[in-house]
């Protein structure tokens, strides 16, 4: 992973000094709440429902074991002993004391971590494939490019006060595992016929109140121009994005208003001035950054491992875990393991300090000292030997991190919702837990197969509900919490936005609603057809009928009784 040099470290140390003084001036009354707000947000500090929420950046989801241990230490020392992993591969603490934030930033800086631009109207944490570098379907490793963009975006003086937040994601594999179409800029790494690296550029995606999928504005930008091209997009956006209405300020609204073609033309016009300028990347710089992401020292191992295969045959639970939580690796004898943060009874994405220490230990012991966060809020150990899987499984099981449910119904993406977030209209976690409790039979879960349930507690869509096969959105109606349901949303190469099935539901109904949706699927599905494919084949009508039909009849009966 990327290791800081003196320049990276100096910038970070200067940031800590800067923020400490800003906090001091704020507490001394020299900086008003309004003036302090954008500054603290650029340092990941929210004022939340119960306490300040502190959001820490994990660029493209990579965590060294010592960084995990630091997070565990912060959770114990300053917070309540746990952290929350988000869909943007950030880490959130929900109970951090305001005055402690500068000290926490200082501690983070000692392990090359920070809270830079994890909020605010600036370029946010950049995400990439959690399986970068190890996936068999990878065309180009996105990590060096993500790091190059991270450096360009960090404390970029021109783009620190954009009309709204700005999110960039990179995908370098055949299968899109980052959902590039839901970002302000989505970058698909490609190779041309001669093997040269370039980027397909998608702009104007985003969820939130107005969900829109990004549109292609360039089919192949050669790698040298990655930064100048992004700079051009940002400059057009900074100058012409709307600033009069917070709900219309995202770049997607500008792209929509102008049309993708006209927006692309304006970017090209701007780019003509900066192309080949100083921000043009050099072979040397790309190599320097890429050298941080070379393969670890893999052992030369046979493709198959007899002991491992015997273990698989011996233990059904181990085999079930391998089936769902272990992925093939590009190197023979290795596999990638996803540790589930979706155990029933625990808020999705939450991880205790003790568990973070465990993961750090396993990363050291089994996976070259590195762990990764996924946008589905789980943790990946990317480089585990087949011969170590059984041991790792036992350890993970004892630590509550081996729920064999990756990609299944209980592997729910869920924002913190109204339990913590001051923006939320409704709670999310109890919905996730009710659904997890309802579907507690593993055999049934396996029978249902691949399905994504995504839950957001408000329009801001941190839980990515629009692209869930089943999406649940908390809404406020006259001060009461209600939940709107969409189906047919999808992540990945066929990214799609779900359709609303009808009027919203009370919290107590939600597990029933999901159960009825699943029953309908089971009844109508073709063999080997996923839930979302059944929805796409049949449309929402049969699902809607099942969910609302019975209710309507019941109500009528009551009325006639």
């Amino acid at each position: 992973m990327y290791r800081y040099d003196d320049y990276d470290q100096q910038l970070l140390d200067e940031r800590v000094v800067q923020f400490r003084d800003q906090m001091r001036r704020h507490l001394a009354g020299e900086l008003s709440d309004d003036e302090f707000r954008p500054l603290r947000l650029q340092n990941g500090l929210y004022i939340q429902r119960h306490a300040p929420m502190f959001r820490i950046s994990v660029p493209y989801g990579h965590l060294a074991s010592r960084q995990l241990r630091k997070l565990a230490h912060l959770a114990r020392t300053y917070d309540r002993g746990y952290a929350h992993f988000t869909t943007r591969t950030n880490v959130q603490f929900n109970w951090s004391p305001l005055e402690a934030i500068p000290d926490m930033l200082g501690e983070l800086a000692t392990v090359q971590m920070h809270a830079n631009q994890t909020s605010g109207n600036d370029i946010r944490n950049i995400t990439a494939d959690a399986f970068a570098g190890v996936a068999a379907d990878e065309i180009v490793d996105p990590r060096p490019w993500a790091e190059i963009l991270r450096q360009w975006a960090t404390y970029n003086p021109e783009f620190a006060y954009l009309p709204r937040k700005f999110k960039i994601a990179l995908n370098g594999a055949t299968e899109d595992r980052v959902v590039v179409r839901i970002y302000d800029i989505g970058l698909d790494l490609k190779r041309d016929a001669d093997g040269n690296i370039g980027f397909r550029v998608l702009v104007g995606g985003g969820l939130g109140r107005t969900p829109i999928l990004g549109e292609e504005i360039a089919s192949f930008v050669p790698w040298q121009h990655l930064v100048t091209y992004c700079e051009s997009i940002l400059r057009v956006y900074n100058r012409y994005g709307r600033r009069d209405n917070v709900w219309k300020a995202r770049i997607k609204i500008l792209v929509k208003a102008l049309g993708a073609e006209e927006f692309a033309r304006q970017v090209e016009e701007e780019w003509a001035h900066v192309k080949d300028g100083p921000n043009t990347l050099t072979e040397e710089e790309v190599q320097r950054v890429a050298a941080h992401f070379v393969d670890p020292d893999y052992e030369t191992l046979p493709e198959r491992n007899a002991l491992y295969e015997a273990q698989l045959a011996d233990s059904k639970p181990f085999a079930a875990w391998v089936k769902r939580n272990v992925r093939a690796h590009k190197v023979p004898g290795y596999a990638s393991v996803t540790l589930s943060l979706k155990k029933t009874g625990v808020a999705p994405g939450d991880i205790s300090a003790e568990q973070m220490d465990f993961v750090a230990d396993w990363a050291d012991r089994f996976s070259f000292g590195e762990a990764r966060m996924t946008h589905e809020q789980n943790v990946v150990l990317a480089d585990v030997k087949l011969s170590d899987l059984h041991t790792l499984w036992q350890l993970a099981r004892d630590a509550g991190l081996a729920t064999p449910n990756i990609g299944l119904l209980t592997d729910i993406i869920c924002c913190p919702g109204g339990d913590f977030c001051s923006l939320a209209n409704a709670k999310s976690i109890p919905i996730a837990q009710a659904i997890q409790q309802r579907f507690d039979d593993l055999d049934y879960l396996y029978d249902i197969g691949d399905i994504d349930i995504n839950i957001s507690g408000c329009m801001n869509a941190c839980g990515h509900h629009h692209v869930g096969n089943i999406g649940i959105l908390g809404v406020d109606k006259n001060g009461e919490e209600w939940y709107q349901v969409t189906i047919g949303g999808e992540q990945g190469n066929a990214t799609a936005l779900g359709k609303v099935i009808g009027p919203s539901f009370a919290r107590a109904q939600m597990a029933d609603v999901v159960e009825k949706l699943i029953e309908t699927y089971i009844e109508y599905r073709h063999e080997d057809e996923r839930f979302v494919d059944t929805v796409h084949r049949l449309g929402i009508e049969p699902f809607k009928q099942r969910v609302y039909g019975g209710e309507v009849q019941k109500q009528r009966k009551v009325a006639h009784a």
Partner: protein
Amino acid sequence: MPKLIKNGRVVSDDWQIVTLAEGETAANAVVPPGRVLVPLAVWQARREKLAGRADTGELGVWLNGSEGPEALADNAARFAVIGIDFPKFTDGRGYSTATLLRTRYGYSGELRAIGDVLRDQFNYLTRCGFDALQPRAGRYTDEQLEAATASLADFTVPYQASVTHPQPLFRRVARGIPPQVKS
């Protein structure tokens, strides 16, 4: 005389910023004698009359948030001072306007940030090409303004190319690859 920060130091300032009073238009606004910064619209409406004062270095122009550098284009060089107004400190358009004036339109005179300008923006404003920073009257005491000059040096080795650092870090210095950090 009001104070502002110029080239990193607190100095007294004798420029007057002209704004349109209620009922005034660009055509009939009062432009007092002495050193004045007039709104772009006033310059555009009365260019013939004001050109002489601009050429003797007594007249500058200021752009509001939505006025881009294109509005000045070839004329930029004739002003001793160009102001860019920040209607709110969170409105970041002026950063791009300044960058373009310096890098694309070749403006080398004084570039002054006016309006809702706070010390926490000083470093970024400077890097985008502002050499004069003028917080709203009364926002800072003289002592606070003096202390605020420290913010100019918030970040000393920025990554990306900008006006003050025309080359990005990777072109300015040789950056090696540090050894693997042991966990």
